[in-house]
């Protein structure tokens, strides 16, 4: 079938974009051109977000001249001016702004397509990219690996260790298929498995006077520094925990950021500091440390499996179910908020 040459120059009605597509689709190398369009759109989105050709080029890992050429070619092909360039500023045009959303969506879809293609490329022996947070115990990791093997033996599991912030970023860019995240965090664009709640107790040197108490009120920890995971791993979880401590009368004079079990152990034994952890954490059985429940169970770690909306295929579900089972064995039941909520007038909404 022959294709009439597309009109050039004089008239460019809005259907022109579609006409170009039709002519592409009738050519033999459809795939190459689609990949090409995706590359051009990546350039467009990068420049639109940076509003600076140099920064966009750095972000894409390309030189600036080919980036400028790509933008020019895209503008030519679309028949639309995307950016205004002056010697000092790049600004997005109104037409560019109108196309930006669709370009982003197309990029997201293409990433999703690539990820799914990778997974099904070799029939059943697909690949699932999953992540677990660093504070999970070795026993739980082992249980998850074994459980997943049972549920989805045909799928190869690529397991990463990363904190909630990193997982959220990688889920959003579809570099990760499923994760286990700590709440609260920004859940836009995600689907979640059941939220599990693990009560946190206090870890302290076994000769500390508070270690003799059956349960420790948070207020009794006044005077101890707090050892907590680095805030960047999950800022909202970090802040939420400090707010709850403050609400119950414990405002630590200093927060020391640390994560590894031996580092935390060292701090606990050598300085006047405490840490929070679930009963089944790494320190169980350590003769120098005591774990005590907190009075009224005010603190909890809450997590759930999470995956990008609309991408919960069989392998993702199998992983989510495995994680929920493995953690559910030690969870304190469903997550329920406690206490009243007093919305203040500046909240603007009232339900």
């Amino acid at each position, binding site marked *: 079938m022959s294709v009439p040459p597309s009109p050039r120059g004089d008239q460019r009605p809005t259907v022109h974009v579609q006409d170009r597509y039709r002519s592409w689709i009738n050519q033999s190398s459809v795939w190459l051109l689609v990949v090409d369009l995706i590359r051009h759109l990546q350039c467009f989105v990068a420049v*639109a*977000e940076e*509003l600076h050709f140099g920064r966009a080029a750095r972000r894409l890992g390309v030189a600036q001249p080919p980036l400028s050429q790509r933008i020019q070619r895209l503008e030519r092909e679309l028949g639309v001016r995307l950016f205004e360039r002056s010697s*000092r*500023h790049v*600004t*997005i045009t*109104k037409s560019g*702004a*109108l196309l*930006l*959303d669709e370009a982003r969506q197309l990029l997201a879809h293409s990433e999703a397509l690539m990820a799914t293609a990778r997974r099904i490329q070799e029939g059943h022996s697909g690949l699932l990219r999953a992540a677990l947070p660093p504070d999970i115990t070795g026993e739980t990791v082992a249980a998850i690996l074994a459980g997943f093997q049972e549920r989805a033996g045909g799928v190869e599991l690529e397991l990463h260790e990363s904190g909630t912030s990193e997982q959220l970023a990688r889920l959003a860019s579809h570099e990760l298929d499923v994760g286990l995240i700590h*709440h*609260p*965090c*920004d*859940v*836009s664009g*995600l*689907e*979640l498995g*059941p*939220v599990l709640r693990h009560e946190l107790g206090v870890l302290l040197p076994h000769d500390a006077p508070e270690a003799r108490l059956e349960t420790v009120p948070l207020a009794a920890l006044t005077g101890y520094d707090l050892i907590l995971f680095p805030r960047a791993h999950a*800022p*909202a979880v970090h*802040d*939420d925990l400090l*707010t709850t401590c403050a609400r119950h009368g414990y405002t630590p004079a200093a927060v020391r950021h640390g994560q590894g079990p031996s580092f935390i152990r060292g701090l606990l034994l050598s300085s006047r500091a405490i840490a929070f952890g679930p009963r089944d954490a790494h320190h169980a059985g350590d003769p120098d440390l005591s774990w005590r429940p907190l009075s009224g169970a005010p603190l909890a770690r*809450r997590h*759930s499996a999470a995956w990008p909306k609309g991408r919960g295929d069989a392998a993702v579900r199998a992983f989510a179910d495995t994680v929920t089972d493995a953690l559910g064995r030690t969870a304190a039941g469903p*997550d329920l*908020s406690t206490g*009243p*909520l*007093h*919305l*203040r*007038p*500046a*909240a*603007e*909404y*009232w*339900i």
Partner: protein
Amino acid sequence: MTEPPARTHPRDRIRAAFAEAGVTGRLHAVDIDSGAQIDVGADQPVVTASVHKLPLLVTLHQHAEAGHLALTDQAESPAEGRTAGPTGLSAMLDPARLSLRDAAYLMMAVSDNTAAELLLERVGLDAVNKTTERLGLTRTHAVQTFREFIAGIREDAGPGGSQALADPQVLARLRALDPARTNRSTARDMTRLLGAIWRDEACGPEHSAAVRRLLGLQVWPHRLASGFPFDEVHVAGKTGSAPTLRNEVGVIEYPDHGRYAVAVFTRAASPAAALPAADAVIGTAARIAIDALRSPAPR
């Protein structure tokens, strides 16, 4: 990250401020007179919530200008059936009668949902969309009334009520947080609207001045205004909020006649209702942007 703050691009400092406060944020700031701007996700669709009371206010004044109504027309607000809200008529117990312009004052000063609903009944949702369309705000659209917006949150929260809004599962399904399914705009569209109001283009000079006056009477000190603790700087704005969402759009005016439209839309990772840092970062981010716009050095 290790670079001293003054040397990094304002966009990076704004992103860092958002991250530090535990929110994701979109910002657009523009010098109303020169057009110089700072853009952090300014074209991303955002949920407007009560920020949409500003397009409603402009619509009201356009209708008054066209003679469709008089701002001194009286409106009845019966005690029954008021739209839920913590301020203004929404919080009052007895029937009230007031002029349209006084209802507009309550809507802008304390984000009174019942007053907003009264005015929306007069002009209609379609008229609000026509106004934004005529002003070239192509990404701005209202699909529901304020009463419907709040009812939607209540419905999606389910029997657990407002406490259920702390549940990640509930938040993930809240329609009020999805720009595709509720009233929406972009930071860039909102600064365009503010620019039109400050240049007397949204309405004639008299009505534009009335709109500016009401924006200057907003009582909240915790968001945009918190970034400008300077007696000689004038702050005018309108907030918008929903679970995890904190917004404000407004104009900052300096005594040297510099005037800057700024729109900030944030979503917090934490569902907590009291989150002072998330409110304050709206002012912090706006201040970084406006300081950069005012700086003589190249950005």
